[in-house]
């Protein structure tokens, strides 16, 4: 029993709360979105809910490890693996839908990632896991199947990450207003942050690395929130603050033009 595990549990709980809160805030903003952006919005809501659902059992898992309850630890690991396996699905749908604009194509390709997730889960449950290895900071498991790790790396990690990087490149290569660039690029960077560190978290066999990965997942969640709801100071710093103005009367404008002509 040591405090490091409780710190880990607290970080997991913070990720859970912030992910659920972000998903809820996004879902509530549905009315502000057009029909074209709603599918992407809902895929984001599902994505953040899955992040929350992954870290809720993980929080309990860390507390179980702290209390020395190995059975509960294993049970929670298995439970967390279910939402985790499907995190790539809404992410792939989101990127494809935003780029291609076709719901059907995006849904069909996302289905492929459901298969990746399902086969990863199947191997995880049939081949079992080795662990837990409880240390000062963490409780670690390793999957007893090389194929599962390969599916995990290729299907759930490399392809979605490549999609995010490709999309980011597409945005950076375009000339567009600063606020639009911020609005499109920052959520992607945040999603990439969370997604990549979640995968690092699940695969690592180094306890400190797991803790650091979770801290970065938390940072990514906060970053995503800031991307959608930037505070005024951040808007000023980034130069994306919308100037508050009222339209100038046209008649006055005519007079000014005449005055200029007189000069």
């Amino acid at each position, binding site marked *: 029993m040591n405090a490091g595990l409780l710190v880990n549990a607290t970080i997991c709980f913070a990720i859970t709360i912030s992910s659920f809160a972000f998903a809820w805030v996004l879902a509530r903003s549905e009315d502000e979105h057009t029909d074209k952006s*709603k599918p992407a919005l809902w895929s984001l809501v599902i994505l953040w809910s899955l992040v929350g659902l992954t870290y809720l059992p993980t929080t309990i898992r860390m507390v179980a490890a702290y209390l020395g309850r190995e059975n509960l630890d294993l049970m929670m690991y298995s439970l967390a693996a279910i939402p985790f396996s499907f995190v790539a699905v809404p992410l792939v749908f989101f990127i494809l*839908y935003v780029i291609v*604009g076709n719901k059907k194509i995006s849904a069909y390709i996302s289905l492929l990632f459901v298969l990746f997730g399902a086969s990863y889960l199947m191997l995880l449950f049939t081949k079992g896991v080795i662990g837990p290895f409880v240390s000062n900071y963490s409780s670690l498991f390793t999957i007893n199947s090389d194929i599962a790790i390969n599916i995990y790396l290729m299907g759930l990690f490399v392809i979605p990450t490549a999609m995010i990087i490709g999309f980011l490149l597409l945005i950076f290569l375009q000339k*567009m207003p600063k606020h639009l660039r911020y609005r499109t690029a920052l959520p992607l960077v945040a999603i990439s942050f969370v997604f990549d560190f979640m995968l690092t978290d699940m695969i690592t066999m180094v306890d400190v690395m797991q803790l650091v990965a979770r801290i970065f997942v938390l940072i990514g969640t906060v970053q995503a929130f800031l991307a959608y709801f930037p505070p005024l100071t951040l808007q000023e710093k980034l130069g994306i603050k919308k100037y508050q103005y009222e339209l100038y009367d046209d008649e006055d404008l005519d007079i000014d033009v005449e005055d200029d002509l007189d000069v």
Partner: protein
Amino acid sequence: MSDDIDVELEQAVAEFYQSLGIHQGPGDIQYRLILKVLGRNEGKITEFSEIRKYTDQFADKGSIGSKMKTVFQLEGLVEKVKRGGYVITDKGITASNFLKDSTAFYKKNKRMGEIIERMP
């Protein structure tokens, strides 16, 4: 080079440039269509009637004839080789290439606009 000239696309591109305050050149549907027909017939004589096939729905014979004289002939984009017959010059080819770039810019801008529209 494709033989078809997509009049609707050219109109959409012209309207896009007009919305940016560019009413001449890439924002002028008559200019676009004339140059498209001339560019398609590079190295050949373009008949005035062929140009009118595309421009009639936007302008009358007089204004197209006037544009040919005051813009295309005056600026050296075409050379008149017979009555109602024109040949595009190297400068005209440059203008035609610029027009292609203006279409590509419109498409890129439209695609990006749609992507941003779909971003929640």
